[in-house]
Structures are given as C-alpha cells and as structure tokens.
C-alpha cells in the first residue's frame, strides 16, 4: 500500500533516473529495515503456507487446496473486498463534498475543518470503535433519536450488520481519504476554476471538467489508503461487525492464535495480501486512465 503511494509520489515529483550512490546510501537504513522486517517475514509467510499440517512438517500445499476448494473461504474473501469497496464509496461520497467546502472556506475555517478531520486520528482505534457501539446499539444514540421522533416503531438493527460496519468505518477511515485529497486540491490553481466559469461553464460543469479531474491523484491515493485500511481493520470488523460477519483478518487471528494452524493462517494472510493488492492496482489503474483522459 505505502509502496504504491510512494511510487505515485515519485512519479509525480519527477525524480530522474540518475539517482547517485550518495543518495542511495541515505535510503540504505530504511531499505535494510524493510528487508529484515517486511520482506523476510513475508517470505517466511509464503514458506509456512506451503506446509500441509499444523506441526509444520509436511510440504504438500494442503492448506491452499483446502482454502481454495471451500466456497466459505471464497465468500469470506469476497466479503472482505466488498467491505473495502463499500467503505471507499462511502468515504468518497461524504468526503469529497467536505473537501469542496474546505476549498471554498476562509483560512480560519479551513484550519478548524482540518482539525476536525484529523481529530479521529488522535484517539485510539479501540476507543473510536467502542464509541460506535454506544452510537449504533439497540439502545444507542441513533435508535433513541429515531424512536423518540417516531420514525421507527422498533429499534433498528445497526450493530453487527454490514451497514453499521460501513458507517463506522467511514468515520474511522475518513482522515485517510481527506488528507491526500485536501493536499492535492489545495494545489489546484484557483484561476483555472475562475477561467472555466468566466468562459461560461456552469458550476457543475466546472466541478466535473476542472476540479474533479485535477484532484484525481489525491482521490486515488485516498481510495487506496481507505481500501487497504478498511479491509484489514481487525478491531472494528470484529467488534462492530460481530462474529456473524466473517472477514479475512478474523480468520487469520483465529487460525494463528486460537487454533495454532499457522499454515492455514498464512494462506489466509497471503489471500488478503493478494486480493487487497489486486484491488488497489485496479483503483490505481482507473485513476491513471482518468488522468490520461484528462491530458488527451
């Protein structure tokens, strides 16, 4: 995930091919740490996944076969990816208008908005997640208000549903969407919007033909971050989603820490890695298409 973003930044920044050795040396500590603490464990994960028994003695890819031949695991993988896309769609829908408001606001209001956006990052994910239990619960804030106003006859079921989980994740992941989006939108030359309107384009046309395409890099980065973060949000998924919604992170936790089936846990972890990477690649590709369309 961070790689894809980093690569995007590098392209945008235009670092030439002639990076000298001295500059490489500066990156060396990070590179070594990356090799030791990410690439190394990842290789171990791949090797462990090839074993077929819990005692890790037999290499026969039995866990891969078990995983790939069971429709349940396909469903879990599908639901995990679906959760990612739903959260991306919801954060986009709520976040983009907010970004537009930010763009149009006075600097003092902008600072306030930025603070509100960052606020969720300043509290622990556990606290935020438990707060959502209080909000979405049967006797929670949403249900009390809705029933008090006579909108619903019985409490709505929000907690432990996909809808409730997406609502909570939208708030939890919002900073990841807005921060890249705001930084890119802030750099859009306001003259371009003025020119568009001066040339007779409506506000909507200006939005869709000028602002939106120019904000695409931020949009893509935001989508990638939100997708990766929401599909792997173990705490929110298990606490707000409950155990009837099974996603890959829950499966990985159960297999590795409850039943010690490390090979199956590795298979689930790699499946998560592969499916998230594939989805992120798709998002980036769409984004790049959009940008090419803009330059054409």
């Amino acid at each position, binding site marked *: 995930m961070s790689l894809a973003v980093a690569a995007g930044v590098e392209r945008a920044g235009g670092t030439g091919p002639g990076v000298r050795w001295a500059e490489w040396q500066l990156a060396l500590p990070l590179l070594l740490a990356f090799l030791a603490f990410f690439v190394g464990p990842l290789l171990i994960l791949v090797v462990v996944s090839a074993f077929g028994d819990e005692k*890790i003695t*037999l290499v026969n890819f039995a866990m891969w076969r078990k995983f790939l031949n069971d429709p*349940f695991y396909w469903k879990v993988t599908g639901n995990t990816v679906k959760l990612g896309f739903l959260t991306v769609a919801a954060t986009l829908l709520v976040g983009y208008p907010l970004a537009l408001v930010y763009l149009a606001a006075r600097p003092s209001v902008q600072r306030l908005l930025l603070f509100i956006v960052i606020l969720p990052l300043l509290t622990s994910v556990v606290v935020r997640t438990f707060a959502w239990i209080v909000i979405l619960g049967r006797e929670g804030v949403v249900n009390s208000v809705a029933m008090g106003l006579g909108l619903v006859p019985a409490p709505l079921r929000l907690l432990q549903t996909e809808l409730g989980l997406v609502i909570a994740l939208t708030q939890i992941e919002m900073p990841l969407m807005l921060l890249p989006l705001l930084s890119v939108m802030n750099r859009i030359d306001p003259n371009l919007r003025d020119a568009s309107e001066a040339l007779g384009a409506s506000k909507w046309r200006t939005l869709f033909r000028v602002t939106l395409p120019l904000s695409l890099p931020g949009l893509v980065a935001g989508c990638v971050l939100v997708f990766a973060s929401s599909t792997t949000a173990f705490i929110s998924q298990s606490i707000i989603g409950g155990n009837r919604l099974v996603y890959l992170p829950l499966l990985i936790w159960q297999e590795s*820490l409850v039943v*010690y089936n490390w090979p199956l846990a590795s298979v689930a972890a790699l499946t998560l890695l592969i499916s998230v990477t594939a989805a992120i690649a798709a998002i980036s590709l769409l984004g790049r298409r959009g940008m090419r369309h803009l330059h054409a």
Partner: protein
Amino acid sequence: MTIHPMDRRAFIAGAAAAGGLALTRPVWAKGGVTAAIYPGSWDDAYRSIVLPALKRAHDVDLDMQPLFALDQIAKVKAARRAPPFDVFVLDPGPRVTGINDGLFEKFDSKKLTNISKLPEGLADEWGVTVAAQVVGIAYNPKKVPAPKGWADLFKEPWVSRLGLTGFQTTYGTVSIVEIAKVFGGSDTNVEPFFTEIKKVLPSVASVGGPAAMPSLFQQGQCDVMYTNTQTVTTLRSRGVDIEFVKPETGAIAFFTTMHITKGAAEPANAYKYIDTVISKDVQAALMKAPNYFIPANKEVELVDLPMKNLDEMSQYVRHDWSKLNPLREGWIERFNKEVAK
C-alpha cells in the same frame, strides 16, 4: 516431502529471531521474575496487589507481560530457547496444549509454603491452581425473566435477547458444550448445538467476539449471555442490571493455573511469586472489589459468590480438556460457517 521435526523447530526459532529482539528481558539488580498475565482485570489486580506483596515478602521484583493464554503459548512456541517470561497463567485448554508441547518445567508443589491451604487436587506435576472461574447464565432482570437452564436460551423471550460467542474462549467453549448436552450431545459431540442454533439464528440478538460481550450487554444489545461470575460482578459494580443464574444442569467450573516455563531464567523466584499469589492475604484481596476473583485458598472467606465454600465447586460441571482440545479447531471452523451471514 517430509521435514524432520528438528528442522521445523530450528526454522521457527529462526523465524522468531527477529521478533526475539523485541523480547529482551529486564536485568534484575537483586532478584526478579517475569510473569505472563492476562490483560485487563488480571493485569490491574496483580499490579496493585501481588507486585507489592511479592516485594514485601521476598524482595523480588515482578515484571508482568500482559498476554492472553493463547498468545502466551504462541510466544513461547515461537521463542523456545529464550522464553520471554518465567511463569504462565493459563486456562485448562491452553494448559493441555502446553503440557503436550513440552512448554512447562516439572512443578514441585512442595516448594510452596502455602500449598496446604489449597483444596485437594489443585496442584499437580505441571502447576498449581491460582483462581477458579464459575460459568453460567447472566441476564438482565429488568428486561427478561430469569432463565432456568441452557435450553431456555433458545426459547422466547430469551432467544431474541441472546448474546452468543463462539469457541475462541474457554468459557464460550464449555458453555456451548453444556448447551449441546441439554439437547442430547456430549463433551465431544456439539452437533445438537449447531442443529438448534440454525433454527433460532435469525432471532438471536447478537453474535460477538468474546471481548465485546460485556459492552454489548452493558449497551442493551443483548440481555442474556453465558459468562463467568467475575464479569457479572464487575458489570454490576458499574451499575449494570445483571444477575447470575446457575443452570439447572449445574454451573460450570474451571481453574486457572500457573506453570513454570521450560528454560525459565528465574525458577526460584517463580516459585516465590506463585507462593505469594496463593497466600491468604493476596487471595482475599483479589476477591474484593474491583477484582472479584474466585480464590483458590480455602482459608479465604467467600463473599458475593454463588457458592459458600470452595468444596462446593466439586459438584460443578467440569470438562476434560484433553478431549475438547483436539476438536476445537473443527468447532471454530464449523461455528464460523454456521453463523456467518
């Protein structure tokens, strides 16, 4: 292709080497011991009661590593040659895993001065009981009538207010086993539970992870659940309307035990630590608010518990975890598949 078990051990050790860097232990000036402890109430209680008591009695410093039972097993398995702590604290399931995988030193209960104050049979060659847990049904008396037994959970008015949790925890596993028994199952056959749950699943109020259950109950998301007495007393002390019921087929009891890690760095201090834990004063303090532990020392006078003395627990339902353990993985997988939407 087969790999010799030794290779696997070396392989895991290698894999853990990087992680091992993070597991450096403190260097003791005088004497110390590193003990794993359950996060949350155990961690808080031991920090405030056992830590000062051990320092006072033996001048030994206690360093605690907050880890759930299963995490302790996983960590010691991964770092076999340099165990990150000297003392395990485990529920019966993980205890059997630890014995089978050779993670414990042999335990000599004669080294404990307080051993005579424990009821018979609470110490063996692998470790000693330091607390008990009693599991039954908890309900909100303001919302639903008192259920009589496990079968009631699957009937109205309880089923639509029921909070379920699966086989990830000891209390969840034994509760489901008991439910299965009421419907014709046994310690090793939980099939009747799955048959029954399928019928009522759409009306069940919530299915949650173990850590979320107290919050779900507190927030009124469910008004009936199976849980231990400690959770009930803790929630009640926070003003939640909650009562404990012994099911008519009997409440479930299981013991939390301590074990000395194979290759422990401070075995002598480990015995001193365990001896302090089971001493009368410490056990009595652990039973009081806000900790509500069920003591293992029979000299402690019991307060606010479903039994009058510790011997009464011998009538409670017990389970043979050497039989349950091998089946648990299949049960967890089955639970996932049956309850998943």
